[in-house]
């Protein structure tokens, strides 16, 4: 037996109490790891594209308003703009509303030129460009839904019926695309804008938003404001931002996630602090004569204090470790659930568990300091008299 053995044995004294405390700590640290991961991901902006040389141009007042296709030539003419393409929110469901993934009508060639990070076989891209009812999807989506190139993919429209009133759109899957990035591309189903525009019942000649490539990322603020000014007094004023900024703005609309998670976590940790502190002070109180015995047989005040502190740190570290481990183990499952929402991937960056682990130790120290101090000052004769 070592001092650690002694600390460990002490934790076994009231097994139920130890288990309950460890379980509460586990839940707190599981929450911490999950919520911080989500917060970090929002802080970086949704769909971290790294596209500093791309601007997203949306309708000024609402991203769900559409824009006239006639803006293309004007935007393209702005100094510094190199390329432009557009996307539109189609909505719609594949079989079941739970199979949620975004579906965009796009310009096949323009789209893949704009987003070189999406990799597609040139022959398939060609087929996409030349098939009016053609569509492509991320390789992962083919796998998920068991699609094969050549399949017909039925999508039930909710926003855009076809001109004959039918809500059933059918697309021919002609290819798939991937990325080198971790987790693959966002799950977006792409089909031919020309077919969409011609076949839809209303809204002809409009697009959802523009994506614009600029030559010099440094000029992004200037070019954005030029574009915004261009349409300021038109029927369709716009708002431009780099993709990263756009992601952040979008996240900001959802709410200040960082602040919310900080709030939740503060409450959780405050509770856990009280709970663990209570556990530790109870553990101390019922053990005063035993601590006196340790001192009697020669343990110094400092050693006895360290044993008490060690117990609290071990308790918190154990709960912290289990909570973090559970979050890491659950990540693939969460990912699978998130994949179908199109919001992105739940990837736990190493900083989050590292901070959580540090926090666990800190919590142990915070909670153990006061009992350790009492243990340090405990007078042997007084304590023995009480037993």
């Amino acid at each position: 037996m070592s001092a650690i053995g002694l600390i460990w044995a002490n934790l076994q004294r009231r097994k139920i109490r130890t288990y309950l405390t460890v379980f509460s700590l586990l839940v707190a640290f599981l929450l911490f790891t999950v919520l911080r991961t989500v917060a970090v991901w929002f802080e970086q902006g949704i769909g971290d594209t790294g596209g500093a040389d791309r601007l997203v141009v949306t309708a000024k007042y609402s991203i769900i308003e559409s824009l006239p296709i006639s803006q293309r030539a004007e935007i393209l003419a702005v100094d510094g703009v190199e390329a432009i393409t557009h996307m539109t929110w189609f909505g719609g469901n594949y079989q079941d509303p739970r199979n949620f993934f975004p579906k965009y009508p796009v310009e096949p060639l323009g789209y893949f030129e704009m987003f070189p990070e999406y990799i597609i076989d040139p022959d398939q891209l060609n087929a996409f460009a030349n098939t009016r009812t053609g569509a492509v999807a991320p390789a992962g989506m083919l796998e998920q839904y068991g699609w094969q190139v050549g399949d017909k993919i039925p999508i039930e429209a909710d926003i855009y019926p076809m001109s004959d009133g039918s809500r059933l759109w059918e697309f021919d899957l002609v290819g798939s695309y991937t990325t080198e990035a971790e987790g693959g591309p966002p799950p977006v189903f792409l089909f031919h804008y020309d077919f969409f525009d011609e076949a839809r019942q209303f809204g002809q000649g409009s697009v959802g938003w523009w994506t614009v490539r600029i030559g010099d990322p440094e000029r992004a603020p200037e070019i954005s404001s030029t574009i915004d000014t261009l349409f300021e007094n038109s029927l369709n004023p716009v708002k431009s931002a780099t993709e990263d900024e756009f992601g952040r703005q979008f996240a900001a609309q959802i709410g200040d996630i960082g602040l919310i998670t900080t709030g939740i976590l503060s409450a959780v940790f405050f509770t856990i602090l009280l709970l663990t502190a209570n556990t530790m002070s109870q553990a101390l109180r019922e053990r005063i004569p035993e601590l006196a015995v340790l001192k009697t047989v020669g343990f110094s005040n400092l050693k006895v204090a360290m044993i008490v502190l060690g117990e609290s740190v071990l308790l918190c570290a154990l709960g912290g470790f289990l909570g973090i481990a559970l979050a890491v183990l659950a990540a693939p499952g969460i990912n699978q659930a998130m994949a179908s929402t199109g919001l992105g991937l739940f990837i736990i960056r190493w900083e989050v568990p590292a901070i959580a682990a540090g926090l666990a130790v800190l919590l142990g120290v915070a909670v153990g300091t006061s009992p350790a101090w009492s243990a340090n000052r405990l007078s042997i004769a007084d304590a023995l008299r009480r037993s």
Partner: protein
Amino acid sequence: MAIVDLKDVHKSFTKGRERVEVLLGIDLAIDEGDFLALMGPSGSGKTTLLNIVGGIDSASQGDVTVAEANLNRMSGRDLARWRSSTIGFVFQFYNLLPVLNARRNVELPLLLTKLSGKQRRRNADTALEIVGLSDRAKHKPGELSGGQQQRVAIARAIVADPPILVCDEPTGDLDRETAEEILDLLGILNRDHGKTIIMVTHDPKAADHARRTLHLDKGQLVTEVAA
């Protein structure tokens, strides 16, 4: 030279405004190898005196020299180390750690030494053998009788081979027969292992096992009876 030498030791406690004089000038010399019984009415200061000799309480006044160390001058930390090598404590209610089995309880004082884990266990087993409890090494205190627990406590007291044992009513919680066994054991430790023993007791039969008996009354040693 006496292994325990107290000169004009006073002890008082202050509780709020009240000052309780518990020891009023104790002069006491105990030779190495002695077995001393300390008797006296409840509240006379026996435990207090024992605690001072054992270095877990300090005198308010007077000189305390035990095993050639002047306890008045020692820091808490030095005193702790000194205790671990010099004094073995035995209490009325055994004071074992309930979460540790017998062997680990006995091993406890050795955690402060440089002995290897293996050596510590071996020494603990030897101490358990001396008190006749080898077969209970894995039992926790809750699984042992009072007499057995006191044997474990005695094993813990001797495991680091200290020259002095201080025992505060070691048989106070035991029946006659078990008490006799414990007292015989202390006798053996005194006779065969050369331990100097100071034992507080209320029981004249227990005191009979000692070489001599001192009486404490109202903070003073009153008579000395040679056994």
